[in-house]
């Protein structure tokens, strides 16, 4: 019995042994999850917290992971989605103190450099997109998942995922 799992490039699937090697799972999934939150949230400090929080939740519940029903990535990113939603919901209710600082004071040179980096620019642009489009961008280019995996996680059809992503990238390209 094997479990379907994505390869590191996220574009193909492979069969992995039924008994998962959790160390290699961690090694494989950490960059995906980390970059998913980078694309989804944008703030590096919070990205680490959210990545750690997601892994801890998954590690605690890994005995309940139903490996026959879905791939590990699907399961892990379902948890990550919930973590991200909770985070974003809380952020909307309680703006962090740093947000006030952004208004009151000028940016530091480091902040400027960061804001002008590509990822910061992307974050600015994606902030105006719908939640669904932001989610798809994060899953596709942050987590490097293929459209099939994204479809499983989001509940959309595979073709719908492809269409939405294409339109979103076109829109970002026009604004870049």
């Amino acid at each position, binding site marked *: 019995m094997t479990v379907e799992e994505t390869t590191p490039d996220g574009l193909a699937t492979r069969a992995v042994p039924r008994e998962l090697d*959790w160390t290699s799972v*961690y090694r494989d999934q*950490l960059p995906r999850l980390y970059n998913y939150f*980078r694309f989804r949230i944008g703030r590096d400090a919070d990205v680490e917290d959210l990545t*750690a929080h997601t892994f801890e939740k998954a590690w605690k519940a890994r005995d309940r992971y139903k490996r026959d029903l879905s791939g590990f990535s699907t399961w892990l990113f379902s948890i990550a989605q919930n973590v991200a939603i909770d985070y974003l919901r809380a952020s909307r209710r309680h703006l962090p103190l740093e947000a006030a600082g952004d208004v009151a004071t000028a940016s530091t040179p480091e902040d400027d450099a960061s804001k002008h980096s590509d990822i910061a620019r992307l974050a600015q642009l994606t902030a105006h997109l719908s939640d669904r489009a932001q989610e798809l961008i994060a899953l596709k280019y942050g987590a490097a998942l293929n459209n099939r995996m994204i479809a499983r996680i989001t509940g959309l059809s595979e073709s719908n995922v492809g269409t939405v992503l294409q339109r979103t*990238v076109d829109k970002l390209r026009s604004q870049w």
Partner: protein
Amino acid sequence: MNDDFLYRLRTEPPPHFAETLKARLDRGTKRTVRAWHFGLIALLFGTAFAMMTYWKQPVPAPTSTNAPAPIQRGLARVFADKPVPRTEPALLPAAPPAPASEDLKTAVRALLEEERAKRQLPVTLSSLSETPATASADSDADDSQTAFIVSGALSGGYGTPAYTVETRLAYFTVMEWITKPLQDMVTQRAPMDAKKAQTAATRLMALMTMMPELFEKDERASGVQTRTRSAVWEQRASFVHEIFEFSRSVQALSVAARSNDEPLLKQATTRVFKGCSSCHDKFREGGSRNAGAAAP
């Protein structure tokens, strides 16, 4: 901007973060494993101690003053022809058991079906104060061993209620492990196997010494989550009686396993499971509907 550009925006997590998180996850895992190992080791020590104590008991006198004559003859034949093994290797004899005589079959059947109904052994907490060494001379040998098992109730529980419940869960998981081959035999998923039945009976007998102890302290006021019904403490004598009956069933299974009589073995095995169900129906929330699931 294209796909390649967007993929290039990905970056590796900081090594320090990756290492710290991995260490944290490993610590959490190890803590769980350690807790589980501790419980298992404690259980194994308890089982080993119980087995040693059990097998050090005097060889049961095959003739008792109040057992029916067929039982006396049958047991006498079992214990005389093939002395009760007292060492672990002898528990699993290399040679197949000799065919049982009609006397033996009759005796075991009587043991299974009739003796309990006729004798109606009184089980009270006061009667449990007698250890096998001090049991009255005229008590049936099997009864004295069973009384010894049930006398575990007097050793008292220890630890918090939550710890007891956790231990109980582990205990019943082991019970489930032990009885799985028997279950497969009864449900015809596996052929009847006297050797496996004998092994299971031996293990169950050893484990049985712990059972009263695991239900000794009244946990109702603690609020700990458990499927154990209040009846365990409210109807203590009845509960102990169930344990008593179950241990008798296990003893009968042990005897039947040596008889080389498949129908008899199946009957004895079924009786063991009936003992499980009987106790679950009375003392576990959900009764025996969730048979097979370990319950605290």
